[in-house]
């Protein structure tokens, strides 16, 4: 043991060049990753300087200082997008996590293995469907006209009457509810994987002991399953919290002009400002930078929370 420790120290006391030589093959293997990081992560950072420019096209790049930020903070749609981003992401995160926990618990209670596996496979499948396809399918199903499946069913059940079909995707009142529902359908199954893994790791002896002590099914869940899952739930929440500013694709394919007030998020705002007519890359870079700063802050907060809860950070 002592010998091994000495050997390790001996290596670390070598000069840098010697250590580089010793681990040259590791460094060589690391080169592709380093190049990738540099080209796709670090090099594009240089483009951040454009937030201080007006940049409609490459022939007209003009220094404007903080003008883009002044304009940004004065735009009502920017603040609407910011608030929407936080609201949609947080509610989606909480709902998806909650539903994933519930479904994991239900799956865990299944005794028929074949049925359990089939159910798991079915609920994983929507995760692999692209958002474009998902949006097209749900737009048809939730169609406002009487050809829409959901409205037809509701009408036939007498829940709504003809002419009062629900505008699931076209009204500000219903859009968010529909959005959360589609997200739950698409991602809950996938989200159960981590919780099922945790549940399968709980020692059966705990349940046996509780059963012997006379605990019923609810008590076993209350006092064994939930506490065992708590750490995983917090971990999943914290890890996903750091990514809430990245909301884009699901909103982009489901939004329309009537629901902009409740659906516009920062990423779709950046998209509109970048690819709409009269696009100014300087302005959209400023919006993107703001989003990144908030995202960074969230990562720091989550890292801190993670250290407190799990004893180790996420970065």
């Amino acid at each position: 043991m002592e010998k091994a420790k000495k050997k390790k120290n001996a290596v670390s006391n070598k000069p840098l060049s010697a250590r580089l030589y010793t681990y040259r093959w590791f460094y060589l293997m690391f080169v592709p990753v380093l190049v990738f990081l540099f080209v796709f992560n670090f090099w594009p950072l240089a483009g951040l300087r454009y937030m201080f420019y007006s940049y409609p096209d490459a022939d007209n790049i003009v220094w404007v200082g903080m003008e883009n930020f002044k304009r940004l903070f004065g735009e009502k749609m920017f603040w609407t997008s910011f608030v929407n981003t936080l609201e949609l992401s947080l509610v989606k995160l909480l709902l998806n996590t909650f539903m994933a926990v519930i479904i994991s618990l239900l799956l865990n209670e299944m005794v028929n293995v074949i049925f359990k596996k089939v159910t798991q496979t079915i609920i994983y499948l929507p995760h692999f469907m692209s958002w474009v396809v998902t949006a097209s399918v749900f737009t048809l199903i939730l169609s406002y006209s009487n050809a829409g499946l959901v409205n037809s069913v509701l009408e036939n059940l007498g829940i709504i009457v003809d002419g009062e079909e629900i505008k699931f995707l076209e009204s500000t009142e219903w859009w968010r509810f529909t959005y959360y529902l589609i997200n739950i359908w698409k991602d809950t199954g996938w989200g159960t994987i981590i919780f099922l893994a945790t549940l399968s790791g709980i020692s059966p002896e705990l349940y046996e002991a509780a059963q012997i002590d006379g605990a019923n099914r609810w008590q076993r869940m209350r006092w064994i399953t939930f506490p065992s899952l708590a750490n995983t739930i917090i971990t999943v929440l914290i890890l996903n919290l750091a990514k809430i500013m990245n909301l884009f694709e699901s909103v982009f394919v489901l939004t329309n002009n009537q629901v902009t007030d409740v659906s516009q998020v920062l990423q779709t705002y950046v998209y509109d400002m970048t690819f709409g007519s009269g696009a100014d890359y300087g302005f959209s870079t400023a919006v993107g930078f703001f989003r990144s700063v908030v995202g960074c802050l969230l990562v720091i907060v989550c890292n801190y929370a993670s250290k407190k809860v799990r004893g180790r950070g996420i970065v």
Partner: protein
Amino acid sequence: MRKTFKKLLAMALAATMVVSMAACGGDEGTTGNATPTTPATSGSENAGTTEKKDLDKLTIMVDGTVQFANPAHGGKQFEAELEKLMGIDVEIIMPDHSSYYSTVSQTFANPDKSYWPDIVLMGSTYYVQYAQNGILVDVTDMWNNSEIKASGRVTNPQIFEDSMINGRLYGIAPARGNGCVTYVKKTWLERAGYSLNDLPKTYAEYTEMLDAFAQLSPEGYALTSSGLVNLEAPYTNYLPEFFWNAYPDFYQTESGEWVDGFTQPEMYDALERLADGVANGWIDPEFSTNQTSDCRNKFYADKCGVFTYWAGTWASNLEENLALIGSPSELVALEPIAELGNYIERYAPMWVITSACENPEQAFDLFFGTMLDGAEGQSLWTYGVEDLHWSTKGETITTGTGRKAKSITYADGEFHFRADLETGVSLYNKNHIDPMLAVVAMADGKDVGVNAIEESAVNSANLFYANSVSAPKMVSNDAMYKYYSTVMAARIMLVELVASGEYSIEDAMARYQNEQGANVKAILDSLNK
């Protein structure tokens, strides 16, 4: 050690930033303001001192309206024919049609001009913006000195006048802009008790017809539309009967003053009509989520009886597609109702030469000299490649398969289009230039397809041109560039919110004033300066 490594990494990153900034700095230094430039003109002035390099290749960026540039429709053969006629290597870049302008905008944002195409097809909004920004070549002198202009074949010189910005021309439109007319299904008219002699002529009569159609519709609406206000001028294309003379954009009054059409009294009335239209089941309530293709499919599927769409070739396309699925296909194009007066013709899409082109004069001669040569080149851009897209050989063409198969036999020497190479279900009817819209005529005896145009297409085009006016002139300046997309997005959103009943007209206008008032003022101040 760890500190040293961090220092090295930080230095490397800093160096990267400095190098990348320096690399782009050259462009900024030379183009540090937004004053329009005229590269070709200045190039011509220096022609005596600077010899321009001959082009060895011409790169052309096109959208989906150049149908035969698409590889699925014989793009390779089209490109080869172009190369043969122009005597130069040609590279056609065809981005996805729906994201075309995103690609164009990203291309022009690239400081490395070697990635810019020499020639680009662009709509009027972008034409005005890019010309203003100085990245399109001024082709005024080239056009004025061109053989095409001197040929006497220009049938619509006005279009070149209309395309000028501050008296200079930055692109060429080979065809008129076209516009939309309202098509009504003849069977629906008959079912609603109408004859061709009592077609609606006023808004009251029109809405009466829509009322009757809404009762006939399995979906409960009479007409379908993709959005209520379009992104491209003239904006009111798809629902002209509801807008009348309201124009949701900036325009110049007779006194020369620029006003915001969105806040004019006519717009208030139009908003009321649109809200009525949705509430009464005249307009498809899914206007917000409809794509144009959804609307066409709903029309084909007989879910509605009215559809306002492009005049000319699209009239025969619509009829042909209705016939293909076995629906009664006869359509009636309505004359504009009295309150509307005229349909509006949009500004024609322009072919422009970019400032990245090393020899704009040569590109102009090669490209436009072929496209508008009045002979083989113009045929290629109008009808496509001989014996691939069209032919004059005697043959039998079969479209569709199985029970839907249909064969037509053509005599030797008879011009005819061939079957769609991708689907085979229908015949082609044009390449890029719609022969009915061409602004430069073919030379005598050179128009091979002159008799091949469907009667319904001719009728619809004639009706449109007899009853249309040009869209208000477009302008661009720094303020427009900065605020226009935000203002337009707000207008589109508010119109849809009013029509769907979520906002009252007063609330919508109050919100518009509150949120966009400053932007609108900045634009109007700049225009009226």
